[in-house]
């Protein structure tokens, strides 16, 4: 009985990584929609985590997001990622207007081999936590400053130094916001990965 229950409640490392990637994907998509970086007509609603989330139908964005997220997933399984930053630039001035930090922490005992790493958190509770964070992301529009200029975004992945840089990737400089205001959103944990979401935005003096 105990083993059965464990198997029911268990979450594997891959499953956890998939959940994290799903969260990032939907988080990025909803930020893109909520912050008005791309026209709202290029988004469609999809049901995920019990929420209706707007996902971009722009092929370019998907072509960008999918490889990045897949690569990230590989790194995540190797515990190489420290955080992921979604940076929103002003295209004309290249000024950083907003930065969404998705900080990752690895939970669970590191001694175990990756294949045996198993979390014991209920999937529904994890989904509930993710839902709460996604809701919070949607609600940040109320206080974040209006982006009234043409904007573009970039995903910067903060990895460990021993990571090999793939062909289509390049090292870049970290982006800072001068005179920034930060807001820590809720965190969620899959019992293997803990995700802290922080949004930094430029304050108008």
């Amino acid at each position, binding site marked *: 009985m105990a083993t059965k229950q464990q198997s029911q409640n268990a979450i594997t490392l891959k499953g956890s990584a998939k959940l994290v990637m799903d969260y990032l994907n939907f988080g990025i998509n909803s930020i893109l929609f909520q912050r008005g970086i791309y026209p709202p007509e290029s988004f469609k609603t999809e049901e995920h985590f019990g929420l209706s989330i707007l996902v971009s139908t722009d092929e370019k964005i998907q072509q960008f997001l999918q490889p990045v997220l897949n690569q990230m997933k590989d790194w995540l399984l190797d515990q190489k990622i420290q955080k992921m930053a979604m940076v929103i630039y002003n295209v004309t001035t290249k000024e950083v207007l907003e930065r969404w930090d998705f900080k990752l922490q690895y939970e669970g005992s590191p001694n175990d081999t990756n294949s045996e790493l198993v979390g014991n958190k209920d999937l529904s509770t994890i989904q509930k936590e993710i839902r709460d964070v996604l809701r919070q992301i949607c609600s940040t529009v109320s206080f974040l400053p209006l982006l009234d200029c043409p904007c573009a975004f970039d995903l910067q992945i903060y990895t460990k130094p021993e990571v090999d840089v793939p062909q289509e990737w390049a090292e870049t400089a*970290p982006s800072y916001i001068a005179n920034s205001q930060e807001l820590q959103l809720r965190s969620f944990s899959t019992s293997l990965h803990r995700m802290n979401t922080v949004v930094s935005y430029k304050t108008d003096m």
Partner: protein
Amino acid sequence: MNQSKDNDQTFVIKILDDLRSNNRSKPLRMHFDTSMMGLSSSNDSLLSNKRQRLCSPDLQESMITPEYSPWESRHTKQELVNAKAEIASLQERNTKLFNLKKESDLLFEKEKSALEHNLKKSKLTIDQLDNKLKEIRNDKFNLKVINDNLMKKLETVTEENNFRISNLEKEKKDLEDKLLSVNLEITKYQDEAASRNCADYELNELKQTLRSNENYIEELTSNLRKKQIEINALENDQVKINTANQKIKCLENELALLQENAMMVNTQREKLKRFNSMETELISLRDEVAVYRNDVKQTEILENKVATLESKLNKHGLIEQEALQLRSNLSVSEDRLKKWIDVCREVCENIDENQCYPEYLRYYVDNLKKKDMFVVNEKGELQSSIAQLELKLQQVENELIKSKEQIINATNNNSKHELTIKRLKKQLFMVTWERNDLRELIDSFQKEVTVIGNLNGEDTKMEVLEKAINGYKNRMTQIETDPSLYVSTDNNKRWIEEKNLLLKEKEDLVNKCKQLEHNCAILEDQIDHRALKGDFNLRETKVLHFKMNPASLGFNSYQNELLAAKQEIEKLKERIKAMQEGISINLTQVVDNRVESNASQELEALREKLKTQEIQNQRLREVFKKSSQEFRESVYTLLGYKVDGLQNNMYRLTSQFAFHEEDNLMFQLSEGSMHLLETPFSKTIEDMINLHLGQQHSIPLLLSSLTVDLFSKQSMTVTADSTRFESTIN
């Protein structure tokens, strides 16, 4: 009606009077003339007519009879006729009157019967009233009896109640006294509570009984109040009864009056003929009837009162029951009192029943309390003494520990001192031996001096030796006078000083540690804050991004757009210029040519490139400087020579061990080989140059031998200095 009746009655009475008067006048009937005269007022005209008619035959008869004179006869006849007529009329009248009399008799009889009927009725009513009066009297008597009984009962009840109230008040006072005493006892017991659980238990029991007694007292007081209220009600009832009695008296008076009236009626019965009196009696009787009716009403009221009195009686019965309950409560309280007394007896031994008072209990409890207080005080004193003793013990133990430590220290010191003493003894022995030796030497010298005599050359030596001897002596005395302990005490002081210093250092270090921890916390906070702001550890992180990210694409497209827009603007400007110049044929071609010829953008691009190149150059220079510096430093540390590159392929070498900065060698690189140049320093090492360059042809050998030579020289000077220093110390 009465009036009309009266009129009727008067009418009848008048008729009767007339009749009587007629009867009386019967014997005087012959004198009808007078009667006629008397009746004339009442006679009708008819009568006169009849008389007139009667008169006429008389006259006729008189006329007929001639015996007498005619006129007389006539006259007598007339008179006869008249008399006969008169007789007839009188007879008629008599009959009429008789009829009238009969009628009046009938009327009288009728009236009489009616009056008699009335009388009977009135008699009946009187009898009824009499009966009612009797009944009322009986009722009154009964009521009086009942009232008297009630009054007696009331009095008895009030007396009893008063008695009970007084008893209850006494009890209440007693119980209050007891309460007070018990309260005092309770307070005392509460004080004792902690130490005496049994007493506590008793106290609780006493409290409970007290509470029950208090409740009982409250109940009694409430009952008392109720009873007082009832007594007030009874008093009110008494007042009402008094008023009723007064009314009864009034009624009796009225009854007397009625009796008198009845007497009057009896008398008036006899005087039936007197209608007026009858009437008045009737009226009076009616009045009396009205009065009786009132009396009847009053009797009803009295009956109501009787009913109320009966209800009050029932209430009194209830009160009696309550009184019984109170008695039972009294018995219960007496039992409790007995229990109390028993408790008192149990608590206070050697006591009679007569002495069983709360005062004695109080006294006993006071004694107990005093004893307890005394015992508590003693206990406190003993505890304080114990505490003092414990403190003293601790102090003594501490002193013991200290003294043990001191003893250990002292033993240690002793051993040290013994060691030092041994050493000093050895030294002393050595010194004494030396002294003896020296004395012997001096003696021998003196002998020699005495043998040799006065020699000038050796006088000075003697003096020197004597001075040396004096010096030795002084030293000896110093050694002898100096206590050997001095060294050891000095050592102790040193130890203490060192310890203090170390402690101070430790404190400083601890403070520093605290400060550093504080700084650490601040820095961690700052790191957290910076992490929030997007800062990260540059050494341990790599920031990667997808090359074809939307931002870079966006930037590129924007720049392309910008470029296109700029080009278009320029074209348009040129076009405007061309149009202003008046060129209209092949306008676009002309414009394109002009734009290409301007090529200002290319220039700008080249300038940018130049700038970047310059920046790169600068960076390279900096890097070169840094690397060359590092290289030179490494050469200096490894080979011991500072190599300065000068102009014209000249190199200046200065050794690490050179005494002066000017001590350097100059080399010049020419045609692939090094040549030594002459310097002030090179002149001093000509031997070496001849040996290594002239014979062995090796610069490194020269340099290394130079370094060895310089090093040995420097170390020599150092050792010489150190030897000098040591000698000065000795």
